[in-house]
């Protein structure tokens, strides 16, 4: 442009002297102007384009601003939510702190409790040991009591047994005397003498049996447990008591059914149970119009059930609970130790069984014994 202006002044300067030149210069000038106009027009058009572009940009910018506003709103919402969450988190944190504090206290208390517990456990262990010791003492005492009771029973049996022994001894004397006579007379054949001596031997066997039975019964044997037949136990008790019952004309019936009643237990102890019951029944029925003892047995609910009934005077009302107490007796002084039924009770309990009594006045007493049956298996018991 500047160049153009400078050119124009030169032209003016040169054209001052010649009209044609001025005309040329004017033309040139017009041409220049026209070119300028054209250029300006081009520029205007370019400017319009640019304006359009600008407008477009502006619109786009407006859109973007609106979007930005949205984003800002979102951001603001998020920020508020975050603030809320922070607040909540803070609450939670504080709560957690409380909880932690509580938990710490709890832990302390727990520790104290644990220590107390350890003390208690120690005490408990000592107590348990003491209880075990007492139980052992009690068992020992019970065994001693059983032994004492056995000896007492033996004492009571002595009269009957003396009678029982006296009979075979007497018979032995007679048979042997007969044999001696036969030999001295020298008239008899050998067979007759031998027969007399054989009879004597049989009687010796009978006496030996009685004595060995008494010895077995009186022995303070270790309390072993084995499968035993209640039938055998009852028969043995009856063999010891039979003579006394027979002489008092007491009728004894035994009905144990067809099934063998086998329990795990101690034969001598259980025999004592039945000897005690037989002794009591013997004394109870002796003044009764009918003298009978009935022993019956069977199986019920996994247990052997023995019913032992007599036709005696029965148990006075109110004494049913006391008859199993040690040293409780209704017999005269010197007649009973008051130990029989208490020992019986102890033995039955040790065998895992129960014993109870029912008695209607004047109708005799009935003892009910339950003993758990031995688990089914090979039935071997010493005969």
């Amino acid at each position: 442009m500047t160049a153009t202006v400078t050119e124009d002044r030169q032209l003016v300067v040169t054209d001052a002297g010649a009209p044609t030149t001025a005309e040329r210069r004017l033309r040139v000038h017009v041409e220049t102007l026209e070119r300028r106009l054209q250029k300006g027009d081009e520029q205007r058009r370019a400017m319009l384009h640019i304006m359009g572009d600008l407008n477009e940009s502006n619109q786009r910018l407006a859109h973007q601003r609106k979007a930005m506003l949205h984003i800002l709103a979102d951001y603001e919402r998020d920020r508020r939510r975050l603030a809320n969450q922070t607040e909540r988190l803070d609450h939670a944190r504080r709560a957690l702190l409380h909880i932690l504090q509580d938990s710490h206290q709890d832990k302390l208390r727990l520790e104290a409790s644990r220590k107390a517990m350890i003390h208690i456990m120690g005490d408990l262990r000592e107590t348990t040991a003491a209880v075990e010791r007492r139980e052992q003492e009690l068992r020992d005492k019970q065994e001693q009591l059983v032994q004492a009771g056995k000896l007492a029973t033996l004492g009571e049996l002595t009269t009957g047994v003396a009678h029982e022994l006296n009979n075979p001894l007497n018979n032995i004397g007679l048979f042997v005397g007969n044999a001696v006579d036969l030999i001295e007379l020298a008239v008899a054949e050998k067979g007759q003498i031998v027969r007399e001596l054989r009879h004597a031997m049989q009687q010796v066997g009978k006496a030996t049996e009685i004595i060995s039975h008494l010895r077995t019964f009186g022995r303070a044997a270790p309390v072993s447990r084995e499968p035993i037949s209640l039938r055998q136990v009852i028969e043995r008790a009856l063999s010891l008591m039979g003579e006394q019952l027979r002489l008092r004309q007491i009728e004894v019936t035994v009905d144990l059914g067809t099934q063998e009643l086998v329990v795990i237990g101690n034969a001598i102890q259980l025999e004592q149970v039945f000897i005690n019951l037989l002794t009591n029944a013997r004394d109870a029925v002796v003044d009764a119009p009918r003298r009978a003892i009935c022993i019956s047995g069977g199986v019920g609910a996994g247990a052997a059930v023995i019913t032992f009934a007599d036709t005696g005077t029965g148990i006075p009302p109110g004494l049913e609970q006391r008859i199993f107490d040690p040293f409780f007796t209704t017999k005269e002084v010197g007649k009973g130790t008051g130990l029989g039924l208490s020992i019986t009770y102890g033995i039955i309990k040790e065998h895992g069984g129960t014993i109870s009594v029912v008695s209607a006045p004047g109708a005799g007493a009935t003892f009910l014994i339950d003993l758990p049956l031995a688990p089914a298996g090979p039935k071997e018991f010493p005969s």
Partner: protein
Amino acid sequence: MMARLSVLIVDDDAALLQALPQAVRLRMGGVTVETADSATAALDRIAARDYDAIVTDIKMPGMDGLALLAEIRTRRPDTPTLIITGHGENELVVHALRGGACDFIQKPIDRDYFVAALYRAIRAHVLNRRVKDRQAALACCADELERIVDGLERELGAPPGKGGP
């Protein structure tokens, strides 16, 4: 006379009923021994026969020796009864003797003692019976004599013209 003597032994022990009669047979030849295993069986036998002696055990089931003794005393008051008792049963011995037993024998039985006691009892019974027989005979004689005396008195006391020869 001895051949007809008979004894009854009563006991509930079968072995004793074998041994004791055998002892009696060996020691007292000629004595018949019968046995009964209970007092009731003994009473049946006593009803059927008059024994010269009865030996019974005192302790028996059912009727015992003392009761049997009392029965014998009423049914056969003359038959001597011996009681067998256990050793040391003095009270029972006294009871038996008061009840009319003629003797007692303690178990274990001493055969010599038993035989002697049984012999005494039988002898006493036999003698008693003989005494009674003699007494009866004497009483007969006395009656006879009485009658004769009466007859004589009548003859003597009556006027000679009225009486017989």
